[in-house]
């Protein structure tokens, strides 16, 4: 495989204009991706700091480290920050923004100004939420269940809700931009079935963002109106129905789980292909599995409410539909595994993350079967079993995929290589720390420890101490990449256009790419991941 001479291109998107204005007013999707990267990283560490405090409190059974009121605010803000300001925008707004146009051979997204606007909307929403935090926090849980959130809580529900409401629009606009771009901007020859699987998953994600987010916006508005003007939507004393809120909330928030995990699945498809140098096994099945997950994801919201007082029959229907989601998810896992068969498997850092993703997502997915099964869900819902399950999906899944993708495309984004030893080390630390943090929580959940408990019976302590110990290891694992990635920006070895020997349009242009992405517009004549024929066609 020819690697060519490694050089830093004289002109690229990072040196095309200097100064704060060239960034804050940019329309370049790659620069906007970096603006998002900075912002989501900030929110990730804010959310992470809350997690640290939560785990410190839970190291002892008594509620002795912070007050109950503070503890409730900590887990609420942890959830709000991580879900709405990190997990949902993480991959689409950073890697998606950077890669969607390049992967289809386009110069930019279809609507570059809208793209910048969506970043500003995101920041505005984030500032509102940060204001709510500084002004005293909010204690409703990230789920804002009524009537607690509308009549009982005395904290900053409205500013937080407004922050989430505003941020939702950035999600909608990003989704819209991706859909239009993928439909209209593909390079000549880039047919739908030649697209890398990352694009299929971004497309499926965008559909959910556009269709689901407005429902969340409406729901939040109803909460605010009931809280401010005492309209009876959810409070039974005003003639409302508290369970109606849960239906509306989960109608968005369950699909939102797929907004979080589908992009990560897309990244993993890219990583497995690139580090096995092989076409993804069952390309069509993996592509349609993304779409199937997006569609089915809209039909399973009721599985969050098996004990909430819905009828026995609706519980059974939601249970059956939830099991259906397991199938496309399983299909993906089997296809990734099969891709490794007779591949040329590299053990470089991004592949370690991909393997970590598959392992953790498998456990997260399989424990989802426990929860879809109504008779068993009754016992484990609202316990630490749920906490463990969704952290396996969102942290074990989404975050592993995000970090894997960030390491894979970092040389493209920055033009430089990071320290491979430190990167492998931190991938290992994250994997171990993650499992130590969250595996004991499955056992705690089946034992019956409820979630959102500030103090707990003493017999649960040993498992909680293990979990807190794991969290401290995990925290270290997340800090190391911050350091070596920053360091690589200045001191890293030059990457060259294709450091991994991977195929895909993004590896045919320079690292970092020029502002217009390609020196001349590409024409595509090959399938995605065609390692047999395209390898020698490198320019």
């Amino acid at each position: 495989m020819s690697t060519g001479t490694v050089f830093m291109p004289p002109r690229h998107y990072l040196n095309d204009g200097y100064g704060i204005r060239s960034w804050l007013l940019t329309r370049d999707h790659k620069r906007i991706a970096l603006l998002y990267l900075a912002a989501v990283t900030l929110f990730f560490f804010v959310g992470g700091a809350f997690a640290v405090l939560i785990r410190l409190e839970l190291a002892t059974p008594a509620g002795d480290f912070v007050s109950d009121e503070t503890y409730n605010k900590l887990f609420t803000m942890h959830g709000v920050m991580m879900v709405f300001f990190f997990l949902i925008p993480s991959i689409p707004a950073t890697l998606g923004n950077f890669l969607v146009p390049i992967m289809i051979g386009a110069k930019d997204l279809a609507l570059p100004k809208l793209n910048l606007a969506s970043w500003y909307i995101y920041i505005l929403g984030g500032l509102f939420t940060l204001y709510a935090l500084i002004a005293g926090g909010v204690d409703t849980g990230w789920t804002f269940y009524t009537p607690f959130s509308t009549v009982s809580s005395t904290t900053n529900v409205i500013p937080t809700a407004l922050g989430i409401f505003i941020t939702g629009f950035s999600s909608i606009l990003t989704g819209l931009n991706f859909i239009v771009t993928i439909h209209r901007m593909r390079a000549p020859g880039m047919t739908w079935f030649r697209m890398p699987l990352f694009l299929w998953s971004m497309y499926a994600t965008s559909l959910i963002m556009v269709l689901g987010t407005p429902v969340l916006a409406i729901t939040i508005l109803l909460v605010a109106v009931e809280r401010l003007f005492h309209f009876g939507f959810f409070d039974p004393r005003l003639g409302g129905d508290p369970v109606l809120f849960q239906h509306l909330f989960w109608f968005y928030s369950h699909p939102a789980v797929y907004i979080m995990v589908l992009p990560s699945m897309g990244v993993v498809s890219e990583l497995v292909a690139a580090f096995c140098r092989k076409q993804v096994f069952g390309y069509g099945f993996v592509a349609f599995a993304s779409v199937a997950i997006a569609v089915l994801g809209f039909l399973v919201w009721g599985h969050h409410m098996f004990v909430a007082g819905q009828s026995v029959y609706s519980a059974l229907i939601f249970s059956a539909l939830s099991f259906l989601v397991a199938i496309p998810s399983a299909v993906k896992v089997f296809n990734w595994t099969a891709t490794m068969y007779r591949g040329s498997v590299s053990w470089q850092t991004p592949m370690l993350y991909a393997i970590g993703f598959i392992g953790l997502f498998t456990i997260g997915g399989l424990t989802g079967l426990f929860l879809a099964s109504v008779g068993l869900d009754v016992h484990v819902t609202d316990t630490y079993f749920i906490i463990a399950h969704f952290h396996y999906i969102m942290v074990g899944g989404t975050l592993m995929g995000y970090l894997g993708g960030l390491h894979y495309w970092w040389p493209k984004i920055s033009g430089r290589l990071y320290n491979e030893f430190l990167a492998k080390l931190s991938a290992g630390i994250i994997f171990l720390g993650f499992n130590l943090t969250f595996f004991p929580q499955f056992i705690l959940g089946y034992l019956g420890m409820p979630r959102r408990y500030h103090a707990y019976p003493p017999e649960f302590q040993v498992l909680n101490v293990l979990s807190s110990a794991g969290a401290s290891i995990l925290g270290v694992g997340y800090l190391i990449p911050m350091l070596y990635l920053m360091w690589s920006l200045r001191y890293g070895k030059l990457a060259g256009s294709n450091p991994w020997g991977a195929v895909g349009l993004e590896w045919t242009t320079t690292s970092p790419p020029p502002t217009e992405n390609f020196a001349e517009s590409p024409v595509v004549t090959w399938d995605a991941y065609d390692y047999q024929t395209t390898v020698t066609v490198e320019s």
Partner: protein
Amino acid sequence: MDEADADMWKGTPLFPDSASTMAGRVDALYFFLIVVSAFFSVLIAGLIVFYAVKYRRRSPDSVGASFHGGMALELTWTVIPFFITIVIFVWGASVFFAMSRPPDETLNIYVVGKQWMWKFQHLDGQREINELHVPVGRPVKLIMTSEDVIHDVFVPAFRVKADVLPGRYTNIWFQPTKPGRYHLFCAEYCGTRHSGMVGEVVVMDPSEYQTWLSGGAPEGSLASAGARLFQDLACNTCHRPDAQGRGPVLEGLFGKTATLQSGETITVDEAYVRESILNPSARVTAGFQPIMPTFQGLVTEEQLLELVEYVKSLQSLPPVQTR
């Protein structure tokens, strides 16, 4: 704290107590799912490690084999998980059915949740806070409501849980199999002292339970308290047993089917009685005027339960026309 510290060394359980007839059924499904999960986790992890070693990149230029699909394999790993999920679905559904269908004869206990305590009312009149005494071996049904926000009754040793909602009645049932004291948790986040909204279910031998029951209920049974309230609120001026009142006769009404003005028929249950007290004009029985005033704000949730229990107790009179 001394006691808590001592408890800490009693060891760490890895599995909860099993103290109800439902526990074994839920655990069986749990173990089956653990076996299924372990099988697939080991399979996937094993294959990944095996392939990662066997097909590791040996020279920097090597590429993978040209081998990228197979309909037979795709169908296999679509169909097999599909059938496994059907088995789990049917199993889980049958357990859930058993959970949601209480036996005909149950010992009924009323539960009112409020920030941040549990109040229990036995039919004989005993009242308890954060502690619930029940006899071993008898099916118990909890009829539950909340005074403020959503709470949730969760007894891990019984494997039962259900949300407790303001403005309506929900219920769960269980049949304890082992005397002892078991955790009772509020499992739906309900505000500042959510983790303090805990208590214990005390399962007793039937004889001990009888002793405990006779320990006293100064105010008499729940229904008799309801009867007094019925007088005090002057309900009896309209709801008269002789069918001469302006409201429907309540004797023998509970559990029957009533026809509404809309022509719709409903079963008179706890929820309907409750609604008819708080929001009388919502569903008026056919043949009556919507003239009853609301008692919203005039009666507490606990008083409502007394009234409901009183209406239930009016079964024994000779049958009367309910329409």
